[in-house]
């Protein structure tokens, strides 16, 4: 790729003026980019080409989950996707697919948040000691890979089962959170949590496609978490 000039094609849609979405091309000087990430490119477009371009961003370092988007066909976070990693002549930026577009690269995540809330993503345990709960090093280690989700929605947006049943299937992110509390040695509602995931859709619509794992910018593996929940259901014979 010619690194002096970036050729970018960005999805644009403003419901107030546009009948339908379109792709708009920009040629952005590398020297206008403050850093080397896709987010720096978007900031450069906003500052030097078109202040009306809309996107979310906050931390700029891959922990807040604001800037999940579709980058050259694959979901990821703009702030930690280096421009140098992108192949092809033109960088194509689109909103996360399967969610309603609010404007440009901004999608409506209400349904995604509703799914998250529906798994009761908080510790449940009515009896607490005076100091901390004792949780062994090994018990805590089980939570590694489960608690780090940043709710960027890259996974759920990539999941074919979510596309077809967004309202009934919980999707990989919410299920990863469900798993995080099911596996927590301090939580007393494990059985109720497993029970809640029974049925044809909430958990069992996962077909093990694994797109969630492939796109997770934090390197997490919701497919495995879903598998582990199923195994626990069998073992604990809900």
């Amino acid at each position, binding site marked *: 790729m010619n690194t002096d000039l970036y050729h970018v094609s960005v999805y644009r849609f403003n419901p107030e003026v546009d009948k339908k979405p379109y792709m708009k091309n920009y040629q952005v000087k590398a020297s206008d980019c403050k850093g080397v990430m896709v987010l720096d490119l978007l900031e450069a477009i906003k500052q030097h080409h078109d202040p009306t371009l809309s996107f979310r961003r906050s931390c700029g370092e891959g922990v807040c989950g604001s800037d999940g988007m579709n980058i050259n066909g694959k979901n990821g976070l703009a702030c930690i996707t280096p421009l140098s990693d992108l192949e092809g002549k033109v960088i194509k930026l689109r909103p996360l697919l399967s969610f309603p577009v609010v404007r440009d690269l901004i999608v409506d995540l209400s349904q995604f948040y509703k799914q998250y809330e529906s798994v009761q*993503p908080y510790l449940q345990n009515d009896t607490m000691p005076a100091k901390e709960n004792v949780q062994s090093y090994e018990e805590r280690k089980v939570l590694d890979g489960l608690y780090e989700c940043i709710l960027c929605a890259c996974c759920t947006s990539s999941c074919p089962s979510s596309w077809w049943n967004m309202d009934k299937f919980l999707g990989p992110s919410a299920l990863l959170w469900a798993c995080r509390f099911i596996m927590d040695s301090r939580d007393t509602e494990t059985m109720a949590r497993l029970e809640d995931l029974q049925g044809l859709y909430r958990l069992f619509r996962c077909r093990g496609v694994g797109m969630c794992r492939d796109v997770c910018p934090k390197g997490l593996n919701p497919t495995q978490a879903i598998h582990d929940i199923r195994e626990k259901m069998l073992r604990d014979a809900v």
Partner: protein
Amino acid sequence: MPIQQQSFDVIIVGGGGAGLRAALQLSQANKRVAVISKVFPTRSHTVSAQGGINAALGNTDGRDDWRWHMYDTIVGSDYLGDQDAIEYMCQHAPEAVYELEHMGMPFSRNQQGKIYQRAFGGQTQDFGGDLVHRTCAAADRTGHALLHTLYQQNIKSKTIFFSEWYAVDLIQDEQQNVTGVLAIDIASGTLGVFSAQATVLATGGAGQIFYTTTNAYTNTGDGLGMVLRANLPLQDMEMWQFHPTGVLGAGVLITEAARGEGGYLINNKNERYMERYAPHLKDLSCRDVVSRCSMIEIREGRGVGSEGDHVLLKLDHLDAKVLNEKLPGIVALAKTFAGVDPSKEPIPVTPTCHYMMGGIPTDRFGQVVKLNAQGEDECVRGLYAAGECASVSVHGANRLGANSLLDIVVFGRSVGVAIISSLEQNKQQASPITEAQIEAASQRILRLRKTQEGEQVAHLRTVMQKIMQEHFGVFRTEEVMAEGLVQLKAVYQRVGHTKLSDTSQTFNTELIEALELENLILVAMASAELALARQESRGAHARIDFPNRDDENWFKHSLYYIDGKQGQRPVNMRPSMVDPFPLKERKY
């Protein structure tokens, strides 16, 4: 179109750690509480905190004492911290951490199954003795673990959220009491008035005044701008912390935990230079000290790289298990942003703007204070502040690492407690908001929506950031700062004439950035004016032309008002359980 009004018991502006902790306290007491957050709460900057949260639990060393923690915090603050507030924070730290654990926060664990505690800068046993392990951690993602836990608890307690609503200005009655907030729904562009008996500002920091910062794009000092426009003062705004280990160029933070776990800084001679400057605590001296030493190395030609503009953080001698289990996040960040694998080579780092010690002055209960005609503290009715936007002040002139997460949960909670008791004592409703008051709060939006000619927001922001970067860095002098202030004043004038290219109602991010810039420039002006005024070196405020601390003239908080007027407040030296700690020279 008439602006819709909604009424609550309490409004909280900001959905980071302080706001969410306050909201939780209030929701659990069945108060009707609304959190207004310009981002979905888990996107708030608390999420980026890495290293941990301090509490004298003694889980690693078998011994610790909140009084030692208090002493370290006071010395770290270079005595500008208020001792009543520091005492309260340190004494309540263990309780605050256990509470988080009970909420489900996934702390790392030691072999006994207790909360894992690591070493951090400026933390000692026995009032300045050996290093202590006081920093409770969830790997190097403590802020993420904390923020998500607090948000989840708020889901459980059914707090009402107005996500992606941006607070524009406070609404005040004739007596300057705060009766509510005007906010805009970012998605629809609709304005809304929120009235309440108590308003809590928990809007976080403002590191975006600098060109290179570890802070999020969203750290724009919104609450601070609101307070200044309400003719209330800001305090100690000259005190900006430069973190010793921001990744060169990108400014991304590498946690102090990297040094707490055994990493250290080296110069171009491969020398571990902190041993020379601070033989006792070395690389785990306070951040202001380490940042100054790094800058001296760079200025004296011992910096690394073709420009000699940085130093190196060496971690490759650490056990792979330590890196993978205790610092997995920074291993990833170093690879992404510095292109180095820290298990094999050192990370290029440089002191980087990180934290605002100053802010909205409050008392120990989080109630915002102003000076009355006699120069005494007087509470502003209806207004509270907590977290980075507040200056309670527990950090004084320099914050200890891992005291910020502690600050937000301790004072988030205490604000909640104070409001509950105030609501119970005072049952009367806040006075109704008038059309004129709403109009006063809407001025900025109205101007932006009708201005046809003017300058572009993003460009002006960059100009301001570069001025602050060049003129108000780690080392300061009268000459350089005065020149910076002249330039800054010119930008301040220009910010009053910004123009929007984007005239849409729907998710107009340019409008929000224009409003944010108006807050940023006020914060920058306050910081610059107070930095120029304080003729001494204390904590993070290091002046080459006044290299010593001057307790006789400057042992006091500085205040700044929107009209440029300045004032002072005494430092609180009245802790309630212990004797005050007298001023001494700081040595590490």
